[in-house]
Each structure stands twice: as structure tokens, then as C-alpha cells.
């Protein structure tokens, strides 16, 4: 048996590398996908089918001068972008990619994920505040309002698999689904509805369209990222994609049986499911217009929170009456 510290380090490095690479090419994938949707070609220049485009993008961002506005709060301004990436990557630690590939199989994995997710609000606020720019400020205000509000339906939706499986560990939740069927299909009702709540709520947390009002570029130019250039912007951009990727991975673990599959369960199923969900999120993004801030709040507090409470209760009743035995 390996030294636990060494094991953690190896896994951390491995997962960071794989996830960061995957994120870079997911940007290529999204651009290609969006291009095809919009009857364009998307990136074509670098590499076959533009596959080297993410490398070029990163190089371009690295070469750019990182301008810091004179009136900005210098240290906070510099601190915010790496912080977003760290928090987004941190969530990857507890995601079980397969029965063995998991960096830290925490007993409270779901809680840890939700906690890191809600912490994401802080660097975004810091970025907006320290920029000392009115557009960034408005964007940050929207981001905080939105992040804090959508935390609640997100927690309620995540509670459903937790209650059904009787565990907060993501691996245990997946194992339960391997035995009893995926939550999205069984028990009929709560699982599927919880997924339909989880996805928009996490999109809202990750600031994706139709919930991308914090950086609504037609209104707020670029929201919190307005003053960022070079790799500062690169990090904020990367964090957004990381967050989306991790949300897809968490959703496939919570609701779609993780690494379980019709045959040969393993890592490949998890990756496939994650990427499919990811593509679904792109699809939504490139076909919807965005909400207004107050409408988003209304949707959250008036519909999703009460319905989420009912959902949690129904999951509890299911477990109570069926004794966890399907």
C-alpha cells in the first residue's frame, strides 16, 4: 500500500492535469459545437480541425500584458482569478471517476462539493469589487445575489440522492445506484425532478446562459471580467469552464450512476456521461436568451425553493415507506 500522502499527491497531480486538459479541449469542443449550430465552421486553423486552438488561445493569453487599473485594489485584483481556479479544481477531489480513481473519497463528499461551490461566490465578488469598475461592480452584485440564492435549490436537489442512498459519499451514492438503478429513472419522480432542478441551479452557480447575467456582455460589457486582461481573464474563463465540467461530472455521479454502465463499468462510462451532459449544457447555452436578474430571483425563490422542499420530503417519504428497498 502506498503512502497516503504520496497517493494524494499523485492523484491530485493526475486529476488536475487531466481535468485541465479536458477543460482546454472542451473549449475547443464548445466552439466547434457552437460553430456547427450557427452554420459556421468554428476553429479550423491550428491542427487538424482546429484541435490545437486551445494551445494557441492559452499562448495568446500568456503573452498579453496583465494590466492592473491604477484605481484597482491591487492585491485582491491579482488574487481573485487564481482563487476561482483553485476552488473549482478543489471540487474535483471528491468526484469518483471510477471505483478506484478518486483523490479523496470523503464521507461528506456532497457537503464538501456544495461548500466549495458556495465559496466560489467570494472570488467573483472580490474580482468585481477590486476592479473598481461600475460594470464589474454591477456584475459582482448580480453574481453574489444569484450564487447565494441558487445555493438553496442546489442543496435541496442534491439532498434527494443523498436521502435515497443514505450516504453523503459520492462513491457510496454511485454504488447504491449500481445495485438499485440510476436515480434519474428509479424511484420514478424524485430523482428525475431533482436532476431537472440540479442542472439549472448549478448552471446558475456556474454563471452559464441562460443564467449568465453576472457577465451579461450585452449589458455589462463583460461583468466581473471587464478589467481583466491576459491570464487573469484566462483564469476566470477557465474557472467557468472547470465549474461547468465539474457540475456535469457531479450530476452524472449523483443521478446517472457514475461509472456504472450496461457493460464493463469503469472510468469510460463516467467520462462519457460527463461529456454528454457537458454537450447538453452547451446546447442550452447556444439556443437560449438570458433572464433578467429579478426574474432569476423570482424563479428561484418563488418556484424552485418551495418545489425543492416538497421534493426532499417526497424522497424522505419514499425511503420511509419502502425502507430503502426498491
Amino acid at each position: 500500500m502506498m503512502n497516503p500522502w504520496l497517493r494524494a499527491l499523485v492523484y491530485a497531480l493526475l486529476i488536475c492535469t487531466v481535468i485541465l486538459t479536458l477543460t482546454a479541449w472542451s473549449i475547443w469542443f464548445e466552439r466547434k459545437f457552437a460553430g456547427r449550430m450557427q452554420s459556421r465552421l468554428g476553429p479550423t486553423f491550428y491542427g487538424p480541425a482546429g484541435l490545437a486552438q486551445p494551445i494557441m488561445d492559452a499562448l495568446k493569453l500568456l503573452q498579453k500584458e496583465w494590466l492592473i487599473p491604477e484605481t484597482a485594489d491591487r492585491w485582491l485584483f491579482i488574487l481573485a482569478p487564481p482563487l476561482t481556479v483553485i476552488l473549482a479544481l478543489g471540487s474535483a477531489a471528491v468526484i469518483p471517476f471510477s471505483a478506484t480513481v478518486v483523490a479523496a473519497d470523503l464521507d461528506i463528499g456532497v457537503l464538501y462539493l456544495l461548500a466549495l461551490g458556495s465559496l466560489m461566490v467570494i472570488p467573483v465578488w472580490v474580482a468585481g469589487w477590486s476592479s473598481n469598475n461600475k460594470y464589474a461592480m454591477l456584475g459582482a452584485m448580480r453574481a453574489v445575489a444569484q450564487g447565494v440564492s441558487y445555493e438553496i435549490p442546489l442543496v435541496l436537489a442534491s439532498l434527494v440522492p443523498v436521502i435515497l442512498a443514505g450516504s453523503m459519499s459520492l462513491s457510496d451514492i454511485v454504488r447504491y445506484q449500481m445495485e438499485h438503478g440510476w436515480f434519474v429513472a428509479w424511484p420514478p419522480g424524485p430523482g428525475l425532478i431533482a436532476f431537472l432542478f440540479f442542472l439549472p441551479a448549478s448552471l446558475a452557480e456556474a454563471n452559464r446562459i441562460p443564467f449568465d447575467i453576472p457577465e451579461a456582455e450585452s449589458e455589462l460589457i463583460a461583468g466581473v471580467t471587464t478589467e481583466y486582461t491576459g491570464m487573469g481573464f484566462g483564469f476566470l474563463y477557465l474557472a467557468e469552464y472547470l465549474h461547468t465540467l465539474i457540475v456535469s461530472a457531479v450530476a452524472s455521479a449523483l443521478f446517472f450512476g457514475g461509472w456504472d454502465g450496461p457493460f464493463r463499468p469503469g472510468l469510460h462510462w463516467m467520462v462519457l456521461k460527463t461529456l454528454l451532459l457537458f454537450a447538453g449544457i452547451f446546447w442550452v447555452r447556444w439556443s437560449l436568451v438570458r433572464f433578467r436578474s429579478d426574474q432569476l430571483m423570482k424563479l428561484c425563490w418563488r418556484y424552485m425553493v418551495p418545489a425543492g422542499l416538497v421534493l426532499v420530503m417526497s424522497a424522505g417519504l419514499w425511503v420511509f415507506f419502502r425502507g430503502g428497498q426498491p
Partner: protein
Amino acid sequence: MAMTQTSPVTAGWADPYLDIEAYDPEADLMVLNLGPQHPSTHGVFRLKLYLDGEIIVKVVPFAGYLHRGVEKLCEKLTMVQLPPIFDKNDYVSPMMNEQSLVMSFEALLGIEVPRRARYLRTILAELQRIASHLLWLGAFAMDLGGALGGGSTLFLYCFRERELILDLFEELTGGRFHYNTHLIGGNRHDVPVGWDPKVYAALDVIEARLVEYEDFLTRNQIYIDRTRGVGVVDAELAMNLGITGPVLRAAGVDHDLRRDAPYHCYDEIDVRVVTATAGDCEARGTVRLGEMRESIRLVRELLPGLPTGPLGARKPIKTPLAEKASKGHAYACVESPRGELGVYTIGGGDNKGASPYRLKIRSPSLHVLSCLPYVLPGQSVSDAVAVLGSLDPIMGEVDR
């Protein structure tokens, strides 16, 4: 800001001359300059917004960043040199600009335009209306959905369809954007061989796609939430401010120059005017979508009946009849996609009377923008962008 000034428009609307000091002695409002460089001000337009949180308290619009002195230029160039200059005014519907200009000169000089040219002008105007409204639809979707989202998808779709019409214009005039096809007394370019079937084919494609776009918007709850009841301009406000075009018709006023003051050959065909009653962004969208359908119908009806005959007045007009022009003045207006686009000319200026003495453009976009200080207060920044997009202002025309 003069504090004694009072709003010319009656109660029920926000006061454009609101005294901020009196409104909020603590001065805890945020002043946000939306523009002149901003993704969704449709050019260089500045809105000074006084924000209470995200709610707009007062709006001060600033235009003039794109002022090029076109009206002054008109006093220096001869009349025949002017149509290409006018292409650049409302750069989304150049045909209408040329038409309003040459119609004004024709009225001034008393030139009769042959029937074939009038027909062709009508067809071009209607095709241009489709192209212009398509661009509006795309830009509006982008205002609502952002350049990196669903909005840009619709934007690119609309550009794809607009391209079909630009291709038709290119084949006819040689220019995709700045046509210079209208002459005083007629048209320069005749319909090329094999143009008609291409027009019908393009119209078929656009008509089919319009259904998709309508579904994309009107069956989308987010779009409805964003536009219904937002930026209401009612009939009274619209008429007080001199607003014309789709914004006026969306407020329920059944007014369309094509039917009410026919020019070209509009008196020979039946123009159905599309109106709505709500006066909000959604109604303006409905009106424009309906107008595209109507324009498609008009072109289909007009093109087979294109009369034979000369395309221009008997002699090419090189130098306008100076002695005649020096006495007169004339106004001509067309229903451009944005409303009443008029040109008022006083003849007999420089170049021995070959230039106008004075020329005034009545651009619909300027009048449309004047509703912003009345309409926007009480709504949020997001709504400001939606309302501005739904008004479809073209800055080249506002500032001239």
C-alpha cells in the same frame, strides 16, 4: 440641466428633467455611462443612467458621436453626386435613403419617374425592408441573449438570410451595401436576366425560416418574460414625440406612409398594415415579423407585374435645371423600416444651382430615441438594453 424646464409630455411618464439633487439629497445614486463604446448601443450612443441599485431613476441620452456633417456636405456637392453619400446614413437600409433623396429632388425639379422605375423602386424597398428587419431581429436577440449565447445563434441565422437579399442586390447593382442605384428621374440598373427566379427562391427560404425564428422567440418563455410589458411606448407618447414606423404601429396607431401617402407604386397595390396594441418590446417584435411577411407578399405580387418601358426619365439628368430649382423647395418621405424618412430640400444653392441651398433629413431613428428618457426610468439596466434594441435605432441616421 435647467430646472425650470418641464416635460412636454403629459403625466404618466417619467420626467426627463428630473432634478437628481432634489430626488436624492444623499446623492447615493450610481451614474453609469452606457456607451458610447458599449456592445449594445448599436453604434456610438451614450446613455447616462442614474441608477438606484439596478433600477434606472433618470436617463440622459447623448447623440452626436457619429456626426459627419452630411447635411452641410449636401450644400457643397451637386444633386447627382448625393445618392451615394446617402447610402451611408441609415447603413442598414441604404435603398430607402437613396429613394427619399431622389424623390425629394424629383419633386423639386418636377421630374416624372417612369412606371417601370417606380415599380422597381417599390420592389427594392420591400426587399430592403426584409433585410433591415432581419438584421434588427438578429441584433435584438443578441441584446437579449448576448454575443456568446443563444442570441448570437439567431443573429447569425438572420445574417445568413439577409445575405440572400444582399446577393440579389449585388447582382442587380454591383454593390452589396452601397448601391448608388437610384438616379434623379429613374433607376440606373435594370433587372438582370434570370433575376426573378432567384428572388422567389430567396423569398421562399426566408419565409420558411421566419417561422423558425418566430418559434425561437415567441414560444420561448424567457423571451416573453424579457419583452412583455417592457419599455411600453403608448400611442400618445409616440405621437407627441413624432415617433413613426414599427414603434408607432406597435402602439396601436394604424399609420403607414405606404398606404396613407402612397409613393412609388404603392397606390396600385394593397398594403396591409401590421399593428399591435401593447406598445412593448414584444409588440414591436410582432409588428416587424409581420412586416417581413407582408413585404415578402408584396414582392411576390409586384415582381411578375414589372411593367416594360424606360427605366429613367427621357434624358439623363446631368445638371439639374438650375433656374427652376432656385425658386422651389420640396419634401418627400418614404416609409423606411424605421419610420418616416423624409428629405426636405431648398433648391438653388452652390454650383450654379446644381446643389441644394439647404437640405434637411428627417430621420426616424432620432425621434424614436427621444422616447428613452420617458420610458426607461423604473426599469433595470437589462431592460434598458432590451428597449434600446427593440427601438432599432441606427446611429448613422441619428447623427448624420
